[in-house]
Each structure stands twice: as C-alpha cells, then as structure tokens.
C-alpha cells in the first residue's frame, strides 16, 4: 500500500482547518442583529457600521450608484442607510464581508477567483427575483444563504485541494454525484463543510441548514429556505454563472418545482428575471470590488 501518496487529509485535519479560518467580521454580525431589533434605529446601525471604513465606502458607493437614480450624491452614512432600506443594508453588509473569502482561486473545482465570486453574487441576485416571483417572504435570509452557500469549497480547496482531482476523476468515471465522491474520498462534502463554518460564525440555524442541504435532493425539499436556495443555485448554474467543474455533477429532486409551487411557466419566467438581475449584478460586483 502506498501511504506516501496519502498525506494527512483526515476529516479531523479538515475540521481543524475550519477553526483556523478567519472569523466572519463581528461588526457585521452586530450590525445585522441591531438591524433586526425593532427597538433600535438606523442611527444605531450607523454607529456600528462607522467602525468599518470599507463597509461605509461600499454603502455610499451603492447608494450613489445608478441603481437608485438619486439626483444628488449622498455623503453621510445615515442618509444612505435610510435610502437603502433594511433589506438592502443587510445585503450590502453580507456581500461586503463575504467578498474577501469568495475572491479565491479554487484549483480543485477548476474555478477562477471571479467564478466563485460571480456565482455567489449571481446566486444572491437571482434569489431576489425568485423570492419575488414565488412569493417567498424571507428573502434576506435567502440572500445571505445564497452568497455564502459555497463557502465550504474554500476550506476543502485550501486544505484538501490535491485530492479534489481524485474526487473529480471518481465522479467522472462513475458518472456519480460529486458530493458523493467528495464523501468517498475526503469524508465530507463542501456543503457540510460550509454549514460547519457558518455555525462557527454564528449564523442562524436555518441558513446553516439550507447551506448544508443545497446539493442533497432529499434534504432540500424538507424546508422552503433550503428548497429556494437549491433552486437559485440550479438557475445560476444553468445560466453558466461562475460554474465550476463540479457544478452539473449533482442530482436534482424531481419534487423541487412542486415543493416550491413553481409551474414550468414560473420556472421560465424566473430564468428570464434572473438574466435581468444578473445584468444588475454586474454593477453591484463592480461596486463591491471598487
């Protein structure tokens, strides 16, 4: 048996690596919780955001972008926050904080730094139009889950990257589900790894569950947030948004459209709306990257 070809890629090593990953910015978590508190005001949110110059800059850039069509440039944070509204503030916060993690080369998934970023932002933009089309009220949680759903790929790529080629080979040879091949080779998959990271970062349980389920057809039909996330991810992949080598190598649930109450016509309208949303996403990505 050739043990030399098998360095320490044990599951324990992968999970230890997750602990070593820089934590999601506390300021963002704090701002999000103040945003949800009915007793707090926009001024309270502004007080926290002011501590992070990068966030302030992104919020001002977004508020002054063509998307809002304002006649005058806004230069103070509180006015910008009032104009953006609660949902858009949440989205800018999550997107701005997530970008440093998402802008990475993922060799094992044959994804460039732009691919993961476009896929995550694209999926989040799609989540907004799909929420609207299918009447999903919890669009902010879906947006957060959409931005962060592939975060587990970063850990697996950094720490078990070389073995991902083995995963891909196995998936290609057997024409099997990529997540299944990840389990066979590594002992976990990027959805489970992503969910563990988000738990460590103290994201709400529903978001962690949706991320955990997004490639598991038996799991994602069990709750609406997970089903919505899986659906948005499928549309992003079908439209070729930041697609990796694994992206089409997953099984889909034949009950997904039924669970979502989505007709074939709705599905096509969602695709069309998604294409338009992705045009908008170009601006947002530009804004976030400066």
């Amino acid at each position: 048996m050739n043990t030399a070809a098998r360095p320490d890629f044990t599951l324990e090593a992968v999970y230890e690596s997750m602990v070593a990953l820089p934590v999601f910015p506390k300021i963002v978590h704090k701002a999000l919780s103040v945003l949800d508190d009915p007793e707090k005001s926009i001024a309270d949110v502004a007080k926290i955001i002011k501590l992070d110059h990068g966030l302030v800059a992104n919020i001002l850039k977004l508020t002054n972008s063509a998307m809002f069509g304002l006649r005058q440039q806004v230069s103070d944070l509180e006015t910008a926050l009032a104009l953006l509204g609660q949902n858009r503030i949440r989205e800018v916060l999550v997107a701005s904080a997530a970008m440093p993690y998402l802008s990475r080369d993922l060799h094992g998934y044959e994804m460039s730094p732009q691919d993961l970023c476009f896929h995550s932002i694209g999926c989040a933009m799609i989540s907004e139009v799909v929420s609207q089309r299918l009447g999903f009220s919890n669009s902010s949680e879906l947006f957060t889950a959409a931005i962060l759903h592939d975060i587990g790929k970063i850990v697996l790529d950094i720490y078990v990257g070389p073995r991902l080629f083995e995963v891909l080979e196995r998936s290609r040879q057997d024409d099997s589900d990529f997540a299944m091949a990840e389990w066979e080779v590594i002992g976990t998959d990027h959805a489970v790894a992503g969910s563990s990271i988000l738990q460590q970062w103290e994201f709400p349980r529903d978001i962690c569950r949706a991320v955990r389920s997004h490639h598991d057809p038996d799991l994602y039909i069990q709750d609406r947030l997970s089903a919505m996330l899986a659906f948005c991810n499928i549309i992003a992949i079908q439209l070729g948004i930041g697609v990796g080598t694994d992206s089409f190598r997953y099984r889909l649930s034949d009950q997904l459209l039924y669970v979502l109450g989505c007709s074939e016509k709705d599905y096509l309208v969602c695709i069309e709306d998604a294409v338009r949303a992705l045009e908008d996403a170009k601006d947002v990505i530009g804004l976030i990257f400066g």
Partner: protein
Amino acid sequence: MHEVYVDRGAVTVSDEPSTVIMAKSLGATLAVVATDPAAGVAGIGHCILPVSPGKPSTLPEVLEQMRNLFKHMIQKGAAAQDMKIMLCGAATFLGEPKEMALGVWLYKKAVQALKKNGLALGGEHVGGPINRSVSIEVGSPQARVILPDKKEILI
C-alpha cells in the same frame, strides 16, 4: 486577432476578417453557431428560453433567436445553402427532471427548427454535465469548443 463576446441572450455576427466571436460559460443554455467561410461571415446566437414564458419577454425564444442569427448572417452576405450550423452547450445535471431540463429543451427546439427549415446540423458538442464555451473565427469552417479543463475541441 479581435475577440468579440456574445452577451447573454444576444446575437453577434461579423464579416470582419480575424475576428473571433465567443460565447463564454454556456451552462445549460445553447449557442447556435453559424459560419459561411466562402462569404467570410460567422455568428453566434445565444439561446436561453426554449419557448416564450407567455408574457411580454425581453429574451427571444430559441426559434426567434435562430431566425435573428440567420437574418443577420444573410444581411452580411452569407448564403443559406453554404452555411454550416453547429450547436454547443445545453449541459444537463445528473438525473435531471424533465420539467427542469433547460438544455435538453433548448436543444430539441433548435434541432426541430433546423429540420423544419431543411437545414443540416453541421456539428455539435452538447449535453452531459459539462460547462462549455465556444468560439468561431470569421472565415473558419470549424467552431472551437473550450471545456472546463481548458481542453479545446474543434467541431
């Protein structure tokens, strides 16, 4: 060499020598590639919707997009009988339910349209769990398909 990228859901046709027209990361969508090397005209129509979703739509359905492509090709001097038509993209998930099989749906509609109009399919690289990009150089009889591992295939 001058590269021109096809926007999502758009048609791009060129008669400029040394121009390469490219549709990137097709996913399940379909690129209809047409070339008339003798006339020095080539183009790509990017198809996203297999049929109209039944409301005023900003994206043309596959038949309309093919019509747009051929109309632009002929306007630039291509001859219908000399055109080579190729299909690329239409990736599928594993065990994809038929109501979500966007790639299959687009491909079938495109092939039907070609048959109905007596046009031959000159080549294809479609289906399976593979994301592709495709390019055609003006004057070339073959399209170049680019796979995720950067391997290239001529069709």
